[in-house]
């Protein structure tokens, strides 16, 4: 599926734990992300390594630790389970069911967010994530791509060096014995970096300033300094705005809250500089993902699924708070059932996979490059 469709889905799935603390909605959301993670991992052609392979195990850990931590630290609540000796600093005092539940919900929120982002790392390869960086960051994109190939080759080289030193009778006895391993790897790494830089230069890479031949040098002096000033001002106002918002009651001049305008203006200025810098960068992208009806449907379903819960929490009606006395969380099917719409990617993955095969015959080049991974 198209990365943007995934971004929208992840945004929706991650929104639920951010807006509500009702454990029932959280559990539904968490279960859905787990099912989607599983669906991606059973896909053929998935390259991403299952680094975050175990959202369930993580969830168990987060809920347990969250509950224990909050239970021991916070002594608020009316249902007292047991009383720890007051002599123990910090954790001494009553252990309440309310604080345990509150902490467990914290853990569940964390686990749900974690699992939603696990989908991101599994479904969208780093390469494609990089493609959504602004153009001004093209050198960063290239550097990341290089790192992806450079790191494994360094590991191979380390192995070679280790063997080469071993056959000279080298043994690891102390810190000093790391030098024979470290030096050849370092020197070899620098040599390879130089070779790579040379190879990139020979293929027209100019650190993000490559220009089409017809245009000639397009560097406009002066515009650079303006951009720098705007960038400093922009980032500065974001910072000041952020700090102002943290101050109790907000800082007001003549009765006006300046923090929000500062944040908005600063962000806009910064984005403008990035966009402007990007317009100087002349390069294009080979890899394009295609957006089809499947993506549209998934995106719409994802948004619709979380809309009710969003509206109600904004009106303050879908919250849950165990304090001061534990009660069952409320569950409104009108909020909970739409969440199942978040299962859309499972259908989407299937639809795209079937679609690719038929489309490939029609337009081999365009479609296969666009959907190389068939996600």
């Amino acid at each position, binding site marked *: 599926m198209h990365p943007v469709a995934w971004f929208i889905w992840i945004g929706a799935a991650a929104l639920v734990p951010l807006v509500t603390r009702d454990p029932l909605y959280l559990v539904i959301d968490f279960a859905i992300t787990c099912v989607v993670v599983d669906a991606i991992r059973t896909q053929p052609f998935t*390259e991403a390594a299952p680094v975050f392979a175990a959202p369930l195990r993580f969830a168990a850990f987060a809920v347990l630790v969250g509950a224990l931590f909050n239970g021991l630290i916070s002594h608020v609540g009316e249902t007292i389970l047991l009383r720890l000796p007051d002599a123990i600093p910090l954790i001494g005092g009553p252990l309440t069911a309310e604080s345990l539940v509150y902490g467990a919900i914290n853990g569940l929120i964390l686990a749900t967010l974690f699992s939603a982002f696990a989908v991101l790392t599994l479904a969208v390869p780093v*390469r494609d994530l990089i493609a959504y960086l602004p153009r001004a960051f093209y050198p960063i994109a*290239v550097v990341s*791509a*290089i790192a*992806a*190939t450079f790191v*494994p*080759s360094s590991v191979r*080289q380390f192995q*070679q*060096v280790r*063997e*080469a*030193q*071993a*056959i*000279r*009778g*080298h*043994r690891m006895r102390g810190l000093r014995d790391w*030098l*024979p391993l470290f*030096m*050849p790897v370092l*020197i*070899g790494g620098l040599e*390879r970096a130089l*070779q*790579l*830089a*040379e*190879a*990139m*230069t*020979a*293929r*027209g*890479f*100019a650190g993000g300033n*490559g*220009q*089409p*031949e017809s245009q000639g040098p397009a560097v406009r002096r002066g515009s650079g300094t303006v951009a720098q000033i705007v960038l400093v001002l922009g980032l500065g106002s974001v910072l000041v705005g952020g700090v102002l918002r943290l101050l109790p009651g907000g800082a007001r001049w003549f009765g006006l809250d300046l923090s929000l305008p500062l944040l908005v203006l600063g962000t806009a200025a910064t984005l403008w500089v990035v966009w402007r810098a990007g317009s100087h960068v*002349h*390069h*294009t*992208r*080979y*890899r*394009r993902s295609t957006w089809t009806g499947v993506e549209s449907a998934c995106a719409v379903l994802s948004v619709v699924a979380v809309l009710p819960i969003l509206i109600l929490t904004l009106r303050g009606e879908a919250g849950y708070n165990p304090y001061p006395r534990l009660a069952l969380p409320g569950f409104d099917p009108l909020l909970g059932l739409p969440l199942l719409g978040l299962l859309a990617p499972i259908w989407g993955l299937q639809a795209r996979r079937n679609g690719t095969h038929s489309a490939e015959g029609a337009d081999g*080049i*365009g479609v*296969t*490059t666009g959907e*190389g991974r068939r996600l």
Partner: protein
Amino acid sequence: MITGDRLGFRYPEAPQLVLSEVSFAVAAGDFVIVAGPSGAGKSTLLRSLNGLVPHFTGGTISGRVIVDGLEPVVVGPQRMCRHVGFVFQDPESQFVMDRVEDEIAFALENAALAPGEMRVRVAEVLDLLDLTALRERSLSTLSGGEKQRVSIAAALALRPRVLVLDEPTSQLDPESAEDVLAAVARLNAERGLTIVLAEHRLERVLAFANRMIYVPGGGHPAMVGTPRDVVGAIDLAPPVSKLGKALGWSPLPITTEEGRAFIRERAFQSAVAAARIGTAPVPYLTAQSLDVAYAPRGNGGTRVVSDVSLSLAKGEVTVLVGRNGAGKSTLLKSLVGLVKPQRGQIRLGGRDITAAPVAEICRDVAYLPQDPNALLFADTVMEELQITLRNHGIAPSEAPVPAAALLAELGLADKAGAYPRDLSVGERQRVALAAMMVTRPGVVLLDEPTRGLDYEAKGRLAGLIRQWRDAGLAILLVTHDVELAATVADRVLMMAGGKIEAQGDPHDVLTSATGFAPQIAQLFPGSGWLTVAEALQGLCGDGPARTGLGRAGG
């Protein structure tokens, strides 16, 4: 297409010129070989064609180069890439992306081509180099030859009219090298692409070329002409040309096909090799039914070496040949204990060393790995030797062989104080050998020692191997270089798929598989000759063609 007018170049802070007064002219559609010893300036000459010299390297350039109507010195490498595609020696170190298509598109992205146009170009070069089936593959899963073809495709994506290749096959086995060179020759013949190719092993490439530039280095003037003229005038020639020169064949043959024309007219006497004289060799290092498997993720692993038995005798050179991935390197590693075998036994001088620690084995078994750079890290050559001694707990005064004498033996007497990484490829390799040989081992294992060596360095290596053999060392040489194998081997083992498929007399084994026969064996099938010296002796009839003693170099 390309003209060089009194080209000279000096690297920054270098005392002398690398190139001086080199003039040449290359027409569109030419296939040019650039030859010469290491460090003579071949790479510099190639890099001046796309502006990497002097833009990337720095330094001072004199004279003029014009390529496709442009001056690379003025235009710079970023813009020259539309006119000159450049392929480097090591395919691994020139990849930017991790997949075939993305790698090819990299230059196109930099040139800001429209996405539609990019797809057309990528499809075009994929087709041109027979890579269409591999387009979605990850680069790390490709063979060496396939990787180098991807590099060529990536260099051609911008449709340059000149393709420059800097020793593109030096890291490849014979089969992959053939694969790459055939692709280059086809681009030249079918597309009229101008090719400029630097290469050490002339026997591989002379058949394709119509021009040759020989850069002798050391301030001597460069030689430019047809391959036949240039090869006729220099010492570094493939065996068939050497033989032709010695026998006065004219016009001088530069390929085995051309050489055969002379032989058909002669009724040459088939002289089967004389029996080896001397006593039967006494095994020193023996391996019995070895099984070696790697288990990278603990799930069984794949068996790389299976049921291999071999014995190395003192005073004998055993050569091990085989394609990449046949298990040769793994076998060597298991002999020194770097990889422990799952089954079998290794004995050294009657002692079981199967489970002995590496450090202990390596006192008596020297092993030169493929990349000697992995070994070197000290500030001076002498220090490298002392570090090995210290590792083994031997005081420099008690060294079995004086360090100075060892360096002299290896032709490094004046390099004792030099920084190892500043030396040439051949010298660095001999420093690595010195660091291994300082404990005076009884066995020497060499893993593809001829990579990147020029004819002179290769000749020195062959000399050393013979010298050690005569001094009573047991030597195992793994190589892709069949001409070197022909000059030093007493016995040849051929490995395939982890097993030893054939072993015995060098001639029998080397001529039994295609791709491994030396040029002389191809010229005189059935004669038992492998080297120029043997052929000359056989043809001129002075004495037995082969003896166990001191076989002359080819």
